């Protein structure tokens, strides 16, 4: 083929890949929804947990502090920010300590008599009104009664303030300049986002909007805004992890390019080396789009990691190119082994399909489709576009010296057995727990962020993100009724200091029954007017002042009770929306808890209430899910290893030869595991995926070293290909191993160690290390 048409072909391939990538980008929905990645829920708690991961009301809270300005102007900024955020649909509610009549939607104001508990134990009769109005006179006698004067005509019994007080968290910061302040002269706000706390993209958008609105406030540019909360920390951690991964990958790619240039002394291979991997990745994504429609972000990350094996295919092709032979002839030399590696890996990944976990099925499909496409591209497309003139790597004298040295290495039969014994001993004596169940520990937040979060959370009395009280009933009103029934024992928990506060949904909306009972207690207009006149006899108010009050009570008498659906749609009802969820036929109330002191005691008390109320420990439950998930992965990996061994044995029709491939691969995996464990590493999913990638690479080394070759030149080519593969893997993943982010370090260190061990052991355990001794 002419060079020009070859370049044209390469360009066409890249253009096709680019177009496919564009299509894939449009078609692929990358979800950050952990649900699809987790095993199906086994019980109601797990189902709820899966639904609530990232959606719990407590995780939607942003904790905000404004400092660096005089108290009075900080107060102004707090009020301004609160007003701006309340107008924005991305935020559900803003609390900053302001008790304003706007605590209730103006359209719902007449409902205050149904929502406030006043009428449970009182009637709007002359005696009650007299008592209330007498207090109002006394309230007015104190200086600074101006805000009260605005409320008085419509709401002489101050129901709106009673509601606002009822809806304010039990433990709130001190008020200064009319808003919450920390002891360190910062105005404090509690902002609930609509977006879930574990959706970093949506959180980033909400946080950006908040920062923008703050900067637009008078004095906002000069003051200091601090944000914290689960969503903020999640966003920061995701951004830091991405930034570090991108930087290290860029560095790794550069190193890989230099390595390829040094290994093949040809710039032409650069355009070719990435083609199979890119083709495979796009094929994988295409398969996912067709089969599933959307793909989880973690599946994508794990999938790309596992697909890294395909980077070896073109390297094998380049290194095994003989001088003078054309590319098609060369590829026929290595293809049987490559095909065996690909087919056995694909068969092994079939085990993931049996796991029943959507995330793992996606992972398997992605990897299998990717490996097949990358293999096919290497076999049938790549040779067509390879340059006709190519350096035969076998000509290198250095390589021959290295090969000869490696060939002369002693290969005592006892060595693998001692390595096995050593690895088992290291595993046995490892100093740390085997598993790391806390996924958050792999992407930890910077300590100063956590300290700040702790300070703000306790200053604001914000709810705990770990615990959730779950109320279960057949309908939304049933949940509210249940909340009303447990209100008394709950008060007991607070008195006993088991917990500081429990925010039940019924705090915001009484059940329909309770509302009707209160409505029954409202007098008709004539009766109320008479009672009011009676009450005002010796008080310095004009009866005419209270006409708005008479109107509202009249209206409240004929209102249909406020349904949860109605209330949830009102501007102030969003808080209830976050606390009432429907799953299949059941309704759940999610009550947040703040200041949980005695979780175990509390759990016992909750259990004593009967089965419809449960204390959900989100951390323990999600860790239990992880354990289950891991058990399935381990099982899948075990089955995969058996399938792999069987495939190799069947292909070789020779158990001894299969043993020479499987043994070094298994031993190296075990050794990498042992060294990690000895170094104090507790294992996570990420380590397992990294070990699987390393094993896939190790399979190649073992297969190629096991191969009987006719001459030393071919042995040199095998060594060259393997060295390029090992060096590139160690380089790219070794860089990741230097990361500050534990998850990147976990993947990097595991693959780098694994690859090094696979290389050493597959050379050491090659059956005929000295067979190619003589040329």
């Amino acid at each position: 083929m002419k060079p020009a048409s070859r370049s044209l072909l390469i360009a066409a391939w890249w253009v096709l890949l680019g177009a496919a990538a564009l299509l894939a980008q449009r078609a692929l929905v990358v979800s950050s929804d952990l649900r699809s990645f987790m095993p199906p829920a086994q019980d109601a708690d797990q189902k709820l947990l899966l639904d609530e991961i990232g959606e719990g009301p407590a995780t939607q809270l942003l904790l905000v502090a404004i400092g660096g300005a005089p108290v009075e102007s900080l107060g102004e900024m707090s009020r301004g920010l609160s007003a701006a955020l309340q107008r924005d649909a991305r935020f559900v509610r803003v609390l900053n300590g302001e008790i304003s009549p706007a605590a209730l939607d103006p359209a719902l104001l007449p409902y205050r008599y149904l929502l406030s508990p006043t009428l449970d134990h009182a009637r709007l009769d002359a005696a009650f009104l007299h008592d209330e109005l007498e207090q109002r006179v006394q309230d007015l006698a104190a200086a600074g009664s101006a805000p009260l004067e605005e409320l008085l005509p419509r709401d002489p019994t101050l129901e709106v303030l009673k509601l606002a007080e009822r809806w304010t968290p039990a433990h709130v910061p001190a008020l200064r300049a009319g808003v919450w302040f920390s002891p360190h002269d910062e105005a404090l706000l509690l902002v609930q986002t609509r977006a879930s706390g574990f959706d970093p993209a949506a959180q980033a958008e909400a946080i950006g909007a908040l920062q923008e609105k703050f900067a637009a406030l008078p004095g906002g540019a000069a003051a200091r805004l601090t944000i914290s909360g689960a969503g903020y920390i999640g966003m920061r951690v995701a951004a830091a992890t991405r930034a570090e991964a991108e930087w290290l990958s860029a560095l790794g790619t550069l190193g890989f390019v230099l390595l390829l240039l040094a290994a093949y002394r040809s710039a032409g291979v650069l355009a070719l080396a990435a083609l199979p991997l890119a083709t495979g990745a796009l094929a994988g994504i295409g398969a996912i789009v067709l089969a599933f429609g959307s793909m989880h972000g973690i599946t994508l990350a794990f999938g790309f990691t596992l697909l890294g094996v395909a980077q070896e295919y073109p390297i094998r092709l380049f290194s095994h190119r003989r001088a003078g032979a054309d590319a098609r002839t060369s590829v026929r030399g290595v293809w049987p082994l490559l095909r065996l590696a690909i087919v056995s890996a694909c068969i092994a990944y079939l085990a993931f399909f049996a796991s029943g976990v959507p995330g793992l099925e996606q992972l398997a499909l992605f990897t299998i489709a990717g490996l097949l496409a990358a293999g096919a591209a290497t076999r049938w497309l790549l040779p067509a576009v390879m340059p006709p003139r190519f350096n035969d790597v076998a000509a290198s004298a250095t390589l021959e010296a290295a090969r000869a040295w490696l060939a002369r290495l002693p290969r005592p039969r006892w060595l693998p057995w001692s390595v096995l014994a050593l690895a088992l001993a290291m595993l046995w004596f490892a100093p740390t727990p085997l598993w790391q169940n806390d996924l958050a520990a792999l992407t930890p937040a910077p300590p100063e962020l956590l300290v700040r979060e702790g300070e703000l959370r306790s200053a604001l009395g914000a709810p705990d993100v770990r615990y959730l009280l779950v109320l279960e009933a057949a309908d939304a009103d049933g949940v509210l009724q249940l909340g009303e029934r447990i209100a008394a024992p709950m008060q007991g928990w607070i008195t006993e200091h088991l917990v500081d506060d429990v925010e039940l949904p019924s705090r915001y909306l009484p059940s329909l029954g309770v509302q009707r009972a209160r409505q029954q207690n409202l007098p008709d207009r004539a009766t109320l007017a008479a009672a009011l006149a009676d009450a005002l006899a010796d008080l310095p108010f004009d009866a005419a002042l209270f006409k708005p009050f008479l109107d509202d009570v009249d209206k409240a008498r004929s209102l249909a009770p406020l349904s949860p659906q109605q209330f949830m749609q009102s501007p102030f009802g969003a808080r209830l929306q976050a606390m009432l969820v429907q799953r299949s036929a059941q309704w759940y109330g999610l009550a947040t808890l703040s200041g949980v002191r005695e979780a175990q005691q509390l759990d016992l008390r909750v259990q004593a209430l009967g089965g419809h109320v449960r204390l959900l420990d989100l951390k323990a439950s999600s860790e239990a899910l992880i354990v289950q998930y891991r058990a399935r992965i381990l099982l899948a990996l075990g089955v995969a290893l058996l399938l792999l061994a069987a495939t190799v044995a069947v292909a070789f029709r020779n158990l001894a030869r299969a043993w020479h491939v499987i043994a070094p691969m298994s031993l190296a995996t075990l050794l990498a595991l042992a060294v990690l464990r000895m170094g104090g590493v507790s294992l996570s999913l990420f380590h397992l995926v990294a070990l699987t990638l390393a094993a896939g690479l190790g399979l190649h080394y073992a297969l190629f070293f096991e191969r009987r070759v006719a001459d030393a030149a071919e042995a040199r080519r095998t060594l060259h290909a393997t060295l390029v593969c090992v060096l590139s893997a160690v380089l790219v993943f070794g860089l990741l191993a230097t990361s500050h982010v534990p998850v990147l370090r976990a993947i990097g260190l595991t693959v780098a160690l694994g690859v090094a061990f696979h290389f050493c052991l597959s050379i050491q355990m090659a059956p005929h290390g000295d067979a190619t001794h003589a040329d």
Partner: protein
Amino acid sequence: MSASPPPAAADDSAAAQDAFVARLARPAPATTSYTEVRFVHLLRRPLVLHGELEYGGAERLGKNVQTPYRESTAIADGAVTVTREGRAPRKFGLERAPELQALLASFSALLGGDALTLHKYYAVKLVENAAKWTLTLTPKDAGLARHLRDIEVDGAGNEPQCFALHEANGDASVMLLGGLAGAKLADPPTPAALDALCRAAP
């Protein structure tokens, strides 16, 4: 705030003012009876309250209403406790009530002869007229000024006699202290009559 040119008798020199305020200092604890007339636009007639003020030293004040109802307000250590007959006491931090805090500061500073605190919260204007004097305190802070127009203290010699608080919305409170607390008032009392009472020569 105090940009208007001082009248002939006004003594705006800071040192003279400070010396004047220092003369007002009295030993703690001290108790004095008072009569307060409160004008609120929502009420048909002004409220007239009698009771006792207790001064317990810096930032400790008690105000006990005795008629027409009983209520005690105790301010100590940054917290306010309001106790009304037959009801549970209400306690809240002083920071929740900025007006009260400013009021306490002015009271406490006057009774303690503490000009420094007074200057922190208010622009101070002193007008002396023979034995009588009027001290006008205008809030410096914009937030406080939204609620409080000014405080006027009238007195004779070393004795404050009237304490008039004018709120921004037009409501007002005039507190007659010491000898004036027992003065006979018109029914209903008018601001003008109270003013005259406060400014009259002893």
